[in-house]
């Protein structure tokens, strides 16, 4: 299974990528929404995209909207992974088309829980 991690913080990309790799994912990275679109357009379609909200060039919410606008990317699951934690922000993200929402700070277990909810836990690892 493939994942795309989108975050302007290299440290956060590294953390999320490691959790996903440990779960059996092949992980690609992007530093902002624009780069993410380029990665999506150029390579194999990921099953999952973990998307930060606040990024330069193009933020995560805009990325979510653009991905959902494209029928080719219809079955990419979009999970926001962000420090934006107001009730209204979560509602906005879900309304824009995000499938799930993980608030920072999070633990590897909670990311795993979310993937389980989404049915995206590679079966070798699922308990």
């Amino acid at each position, binding site marked *: 299974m493939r994942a795309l991690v989108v975050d302007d913080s290299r440290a956060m990309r590294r953390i999320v990528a490691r959790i996903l790799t440990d779960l059996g994912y092949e992980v690609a990275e992007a530093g902002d929404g624009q780069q993410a679109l380029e990665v999506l357009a150029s390579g194999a379609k990921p099953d999952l995209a973990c998307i930060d909200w606040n990024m330069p060039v193009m933020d995560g919410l805009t990325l979510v909207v653009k991905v959902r606008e494209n029928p080719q990317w219809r079955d990419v699951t979009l999970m926001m992974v962000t420090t934006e934690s*107001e009730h209204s922000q979560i509602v906005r993200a879900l309304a824009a088309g995000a499938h799930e929402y993980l608030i920072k700070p999070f*633990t590897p*277990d909670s990311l795993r829980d979310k993937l389980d909810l989404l049915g995206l836990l590679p079966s070798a690892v699922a308990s």
Partner: protein
Amino acid sequence: MSIAPEAFTFVRDLVRRESAIVLDAGKEYLVESRLTPLARHAGEGDVNAYVRSLQVRHDPVRSRQVVEALTTNETSWFRDADPFTALRTEVLPELAKARTNRQLRIWCAACSSGQEPYSVVMSALDTPAVAGWKLDVVATDLNEEVLQRARRGTYSQLEVNRGLPATTLVKHFTREGASWRISPAVSSAVTFRPLNLMRPFPPMGTFDVVFLRNVLIYFDLPTKRDILRRVRRVLSPDGYLFLGAAEMTMGVDDSWQRVPAGRSSVYRIRGEER
């Protein structure tokens, strides 16, 4: 008291083997705090003695408890997911057909800080067959401190990240400072009270569903039997019992019948025993 290096190493290796989770150096305080209650419960003097007992003689139950205690950061919402789906899609609709008074009583017998009973209510609120029904959830635990927490109904950012779908979070919770608070629609359906499973139950009436998940593992076989027997007495003849994912009544109490429910299983009182 601080945990001895050899004890920490042993626990770290055990946890890594069992759950692929690595406890880095620096997590000694975590191991100490999580294992102290287990050590006390087991009657061992301290964590070092407790871990030594594991090293001396392989004890699968104790080992499992250690791994669980160290790999569950916060109690999860909708723990293991499938039982709550089964509740929504099979158990509650079945009960709805059999109850004319539009009332349901559910007992969460090891409710800890409240995630389980609140999850039960959220599942019920999501079940059309029981929409508008009176829901009476009794949630009990031995520990008065966790009950206070549970009654408050507020949870940290980290706690709401565990097992709660985002749509459910925004539907049933509001922000309160750095925390999240469960909505009154959910909390009003739950009553928290202290209860020691090893002692006679106070009068509580009869229940349609009992959740007794991941708590029997702490007891020896005769006590497990006794608890299951007394639970049977407070369950409706056509009621349902949920145990933890890896638990079963087989070999403990054969008055129960295991029945598939969705992707999970549930226990009902055998016909002859009703």
